[in-house]
């Protein structure tokens, strides 16, 4: 069995070998790699595990199961769409970076032990940063380095946690779910089923490392900082892998951790406020991504079969519709040169197809019945509401209304409609349109016919899972969704008509990155300059002391000073006589 190629290796090594192919073939090879890799993954038998012994530890570099496969399939689809979307870009660096990045993410979701996971975890950081550097501007270099530091730090913390975990348990295995007492609640291997909390210090540290990549509140800002700074096509890659890999890790290892519920809830809420006042539409999408991750984190925290199915299904659909929205904005950036809302408007005249695709993405993310987001978000929401937690109910509904604003209305409205900016451009290139078309197809297809998605979910999709009712296209569910969406849209119309909707303004909005980009930077500069001034003052005073002493000694030797004064012959003879007397006396004492 060991002669199988690991999932992800075709992408990683294929990507690295890409520059060796003739230029005319390179793009086609790039396109073939995700297809080849997906077919290879598909035909690996389910339940297949490859183990190897290193020292006293058993590593499992590959383990195939249903949970991993959900991410495996959607990562390949995302890789294919992103490569297609990037076909017009003549920059091999971006192709190599994007494909190896996708490969690292695919490898990570099939990792059966923590060491393998750590290796892929760091690999996703190192491979993806070139999608930001590829802009080749000083700003991109700075942002890329910030991104890399935070991503690598997440890996280092993960490694530290893993070492502790190995010391505690003696095993590097990722482990599998355990059922709770009620037999429908699931707990990850790092969670105590009795308390619903991480088992030990090591599992808290690993949770923190996962939390950085999953953009937990206060650990999130690398996302909004870096994604809008990548190339127009690079952001599409970035939006798919890193954060969803972290969601996979949370579902796999921390299912049923109750603290994930409040964390996820805060994640769904705070980004919607930032998204309203943000002017850069790619940054709005980054906040929106953060908000969507919140739903998945809640799903992982609730930890029922329906909730984990919901988190997995939502990750699947989200990668596609979020990719579609980033593609639409990437097309705008490519054609117009900006995604600042206050400089856009009226682009539906120039880019009608992009407009339609963007609207399909917006309807999906908003959870409009008939689109993929409706199907998948409703699984998570039903599972969450099934906990009968009022705060969670109110919070998630507010978050859903927020999504209608930032991704449902703001993105398509300010880019393609609103006030006509007068900007006219060509429609997006054909490969971009094709990639958007594929994503849009899946948004609608999974909305109308979700069965193929249900089939690959980790648990059987049932209408009723031990008390947590779930009816997807029930009349009640469809009506309540329409009510929320239409009435929120009506609120937008009322606010626009009464000029109450906040205008799009060129600005920087402070977020947690102000801590390290401004406060810590300034503190470090102040501390540095204080040390420098103390040092230069101390050095100056020591130097002055030495110079003064030398000066004083020198002064004594000057003519007419004590040492420099000319002696008379008489005085010299006197001192010579005293010296001789001294020698004589001391010689005499020795003799006696």
């Amino acid at each position, binding site marked *: 069995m060991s002669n199988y190629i690991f999932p992800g290796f075709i992408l990683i090594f294929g990507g690295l070998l890409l520059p060796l192919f003739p230029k005319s073939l390179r793009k086609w090879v790039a396109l073939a790699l995700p297809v080849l890799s997906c077919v290879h993954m598909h035909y690996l038998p389910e339940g297949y595990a490859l183990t190897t012994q290193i020292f006293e530890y058993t590593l499992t570099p590959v383990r195939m199961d249903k949970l991993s496969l959900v991410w495996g399939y959607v990562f390949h689809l995302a890789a294919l769409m992103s490569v297609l979307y990037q076909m017009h870009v003549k920059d091999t660096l971006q192709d190599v970076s994007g494909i190896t990045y996708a490969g690292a993410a695919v490898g990570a979701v099939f990792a059966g032990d923590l060491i393998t996971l750590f290796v892929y975890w760091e690999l996703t950081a190192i491979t993806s940063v070139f999608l930001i550097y590829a802009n080749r501007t000083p700003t991109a270099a*700075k942002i890329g380095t910030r991104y890399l530091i935070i991503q690598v730090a997440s890996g280092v913390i993960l490694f530290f946690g893993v070492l502790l975990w190995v010391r505690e348990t003696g095993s590097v295995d990722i482990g599998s779910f355990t059922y709770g007492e009620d037999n429908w609640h699931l707990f990850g291997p790092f969670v105590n089923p009795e308390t619903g909390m991480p088992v030990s210090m090591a599992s808290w540290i690993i949770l923190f490392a996962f939390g950085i990549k999953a953009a937990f509140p206060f650990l999130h800002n690398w996302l909004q900082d870096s994604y809008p700074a990548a190339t127009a096509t690079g952001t599409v890659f970035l939006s798919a892998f890193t954060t969803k890999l972290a969601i996979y890790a949370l579902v796999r290892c921390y299912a049923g951790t109750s603290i994930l519920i409040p964390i996820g809830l805060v994640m769904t809420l705070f980004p919607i406020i930032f998204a309203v*006042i943000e002017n850069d539409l790619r940054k709005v999408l980054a906040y929106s991504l953060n908000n969507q991750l919140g739903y998945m984190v809640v799903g992982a925290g609730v930890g029922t079969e329906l909730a984990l199915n919901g988190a997995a299904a939502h990750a699947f659909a989200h990668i596609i519709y979020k990719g579609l929205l980033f593609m639409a904005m990437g097309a705008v950036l490519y054609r117009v040169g900006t995604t600042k809302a206050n400089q856009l408007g009226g682009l539906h005249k120039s880019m009608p197809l992009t407009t339609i695709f963007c609207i399909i993405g917006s309807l999906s993310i908003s959870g409009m019945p008939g689109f993929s987001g409706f199907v998948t978000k409703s699984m998570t929401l039903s599972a969450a509401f099934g906990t009968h937690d009022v705060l969670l109910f109110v919070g998630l509904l507010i978050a859903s209304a927020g999504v209608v604003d930032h991704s449902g209305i703001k993105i398509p409205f300010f880019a393609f409609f609103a006030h006509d900016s007068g900007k006219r451009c060509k429609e997006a290139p054909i490969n971009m349109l094709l990639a958007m078309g594929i994503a849009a197809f899946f948004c609608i297809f999974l909305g109308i016919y979700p069965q193929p998605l249900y089939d690959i979910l980790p648990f059987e999709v049932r209408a009723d899972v031990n008390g947590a009712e779930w009816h997807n296209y029930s009349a009640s569910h469809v009506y309540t969704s329409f009510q929320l969406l239409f009435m929120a849209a*009506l609120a937008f119309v009322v606010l626009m008509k009464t000029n109450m909707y906040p205008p799009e303004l060129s600005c920087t909005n402070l977020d947690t990155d102000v801590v390290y980009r401004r406060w810590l930077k300034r503190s470090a500069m102040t501390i540095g300059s204080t040390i420098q001034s103390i040092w230069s003052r101390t050095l100056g005073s020591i130097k002055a002391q030495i110079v003064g002493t030398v000066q004083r000694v020198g002064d004594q030797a000057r003519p007419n000073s004590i040492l420099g004064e000319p002696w008379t012959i008489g005085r010299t003879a006197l001192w010579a006589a005293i010296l001789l007397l001294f020698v004589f006396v001391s010689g005499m004492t020795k003799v006696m």
Partner: protein
Amino acid sequence: MGAPNDGDKSWFDEPRNINIIVWTLVLACLGVMVGGEFIHKHGHFEVEYTVPGFYGLFGFVAYTCIIATAILFRKLVMRPEDYYDE
């Protein structure tokens, strides 16, 4: 780029058409708010059964509150575009 010329006006540039969209939305809202009362409801909280058109009202109010909060929040966090000097 300049100002848009009259030659490329689209369907959406006509105020009358915008009104059509707005009124269609109003009608759709009315439709789902009223229609929602005639279907069999199933929810997890009592308020979903007792308040007519709960989700619609919640959506409208929540949306307005989000925007109001954002306007206030902007006063706190908004800085010039070159704040970070990058």
